[in-house]
């Protein structure tokens, strides 16, 4: 059973595990370093720079030169990267090139907002997926199952942008005026203090997530229910609830838990789209804007954060699935 592996008592084995985890962390840091270098080079390769964006159509060669000098953009790119990296190693993510605010200050509230959104979405998504998946598996090929499968195919084929837009029209603007279509969260407030602003973005993420994860749960359960040990349990005369809880569930969770970690990683990505759609003040919305502004320190900070989250979630998925992290 996957969960037991974590608690395995043998010391030699736990040492090996610790070593493997340490290696994975080292690989993670290396990966992030490569990612940061790639972002840096890609941003350099994108046409236009922050001075152009800031000065707009009124730029002159003189003002462009002055601004680039003030922002340090006229220095050799390796020097720029070195300065940035040295800052990050000391915990300083630099200042935004467009408004001079420290990146940490600019992003602190937004990170909290995005994290809250993702976590709340996950907390709702997982139990619902489990429930829907189990029910569909139990009623395999009957109306509920058919309906769920059909819906999930449609929803999974629909980008979150469209799902969200439909939800806005349905609940916010056109059909019913039940929910605010745009998520205002005043700076400094926790999103949890504004539950009404969270509903539509969370719902959008949950709908997409459940339709994907619920199908995985369904398959895992169907597999588990047709296994020999469940057949044996059935022959021994155990009731369905007991079989589901004691025998099928733990075994079905084996493949589902790592999948859930992947869905978590995917949710972090989906947050970018959803935040943009609902004008939710999170890091996804900030990333879109930073790219448009060519605001490198902000782009770097957000992409590294998302990459680190992905890496950690993947690591957790590996640990839960196979017991030992695989190099990525």
């Amino acid at each position, binding site marked *: 059973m996957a969960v037991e592996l974590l608690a395995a008592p043998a010391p030699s084995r736990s040492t090996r595990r610790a070593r493997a985890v340490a290696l994975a962390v080292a690989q993670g840091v290396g990966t992030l370093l490569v990612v940061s270098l790639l972002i840096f080079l890609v941003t350099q390769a994108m046409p236009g720079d922050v001075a152009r964006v800031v000065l707009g159509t009124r730029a002159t060669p003189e003002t462009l030169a002055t601004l680039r000098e003030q922002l340090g953009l006229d220095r050799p790119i390796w020097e720029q990267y070195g300065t940035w990296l040295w800052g990050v190693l000391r915990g300083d993510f630099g200042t935004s090139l467009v408004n001079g605010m420290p990146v940490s200050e600019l992003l602190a509230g937004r990170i909290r907002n995005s994290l809250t959104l993702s976590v709340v979405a996950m907390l709702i998504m997982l139990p619902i997926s489990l429930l829907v998946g189990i029910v569909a598996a139990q009623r395999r090929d009957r109306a509920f199952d058919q309906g769920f499968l059909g819906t999930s195919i449609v929803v999974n084929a629909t980008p979150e942008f469209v799902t969200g837009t439909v939800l806005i029209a349905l609940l916010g603007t056109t059909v019913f005026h039940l929910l605010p279509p745009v998520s205002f969260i005043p700076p400094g407030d926790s999103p*949890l203090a504004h539950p009404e602003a969270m509903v539509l973005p969370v719902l959008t993420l949950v709908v997409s997530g459940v339709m994907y994860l619920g199908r995985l749960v369904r398959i895992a359960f169907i597999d588990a229910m047709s296994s020999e040990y469940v057949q044996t349990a059935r022959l021994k005369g155990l009731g369905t609830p007991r079989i589901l809880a004691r025998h099928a569930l733990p075994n079905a969770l084996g493949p589902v838990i790592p999948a859930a970690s992947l869905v978590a990683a995917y949710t972090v990505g989906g947050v970018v789209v959803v935040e943009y759609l609902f004008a939710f003040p999170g890091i996804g919305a900030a990333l879109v804007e930073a790219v448009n502004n060519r605001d490198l320190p902000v782009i770097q900070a957000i992409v590294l954060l998302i990459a680190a989250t992905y890496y950690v979630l993947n690591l957790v998925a590996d640990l839960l699935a196979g017991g030992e992290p695989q190099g990525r």
Partner: protein
Amino acid sequence: MSRIPLRRRLAAALISAGLLAAVAGCAATDAGASGDELVLGVVGNNKDEIQPYTATSSASADSLRQQLYDGLTAYDADGGVEMRLAESMTPNDALDVWTVKLREGVKLHDGSDFTSEDVVESVRFMLDPEHVYPAAAQIDFVDPDGVVAVDDTTVEFHLLRPAGTFAETWASRDLLMRGLDESGEVTGTGPFDLESFTPGQEARLVRFDDYWGEQPGFERLRIQFFQDQPAITNALRGGQIDVAYSVPFTDVPALEADPNLKTLVSESGSYLTMSMRVDQAPFDDPRVQEALKLVVDRQQIIDNAFGGYASLGNDFLGNNTDCPAPDVPQRAQDLERAKQLLAEAGQQDLQLDLVTDGVFPGMMETAQLYAQQAAGAGITVTVKKLDTATFLNGWGDWPFFIGYSGSPYVITAATHFLPDGVENATHFDDPAYTELALQMMGTVDHAEQCGMITRLQEIERDGGGNIVPAYPQSVVAYRAGVEGLHADLYGRTSIDYRGVTIEK
């Protein structure tokens, strides 16, 4: 960080989590803002700052500055000039020394008097090249050392060259006056004082009760910054904002059908141009220029790109003065003549890329319609949509592009058409135009100026690099409880709150 106890946070999480329907029920009541507060929605950006002399210019920064600061003069709703912080502006005979008398009793937000020293400090700050303030180009005739405070309410401007359009120049919304409080923080004289500002998210302002001019009829103003236009329309329809800075033409019918909303249509001095580099082949050939102007079906662009909210353009930058338009024939589509001109120029198989960043409403639509229309004369136009940074990176080099003009003509003449104009991306250089423009800028008499502006527009129409298919109107949408917004030629309909009241 908020200090809500964990248990309450968990409870809140549960509410937002499980009880979607229950929350949905009570959420609608909380959708609007409280009592005496007006909420404006505008596309915003992290680039925005509160100090008035930033390199970047945007609708959101403008919305904020309009509340916090005043200019010496300002354009009125019809394009004329009115005195604001200045009470009078008097030139010497040579027009190179102007004496500005300031309004008495104007207060800054920190309670101190607004004086001539503040004017001197503001102007010198703008002109300092270290501050990279692009609008300083508009006052390049001002000698920073020649700005002298004579007494508390009198400032003398000694100019580097004579200027007739001195009062018009200071009416630019980029040339606002600021003050510095005791701690050196920027403060202003405007109708609202700043309470808090988070770039890209929101600004909260409170009415400044010692404001010298007409007061807004409500106490608090919140400016909510959005990343894109569709969310603004949604927020307005959902009752989350009271006024939308502007709305896309395509949304107007749906908004007008909503009984809780009203729309206000203004003539506008801001519009797109399709512009060509007239110093480069094939656009340096006047026959090619004319052919490209003759293929436009202007009415189709008005109907399809602007939903009918536009009037015919005639290929000059008009609609941006209170002077009469030139009495010249309206250019109409003539594909046969266009083909003939292209044949004479040896350009029967003309292939062009039309680049745009599509950031203003109607830009993409106009570009695509133009491409279809040009095909009728055998011209292949390929529309290329670029992101803004990429578009700006090639600014000044694009041979054929969608530009934007939003300034009064006295500014436009210098920035768009003089050979060294900062926004002269068509590389227009016509000695007759330049001579007349300089003469116009050296004239104080308004009627005389108007006569010259009209002649300048004629020159543009016949030999300039801009195709101006239409003058779109601007549409502001707002909640029915808002009263007193007024139509404005320069797009301040949604941000000028003098006499505006709100009832919720």
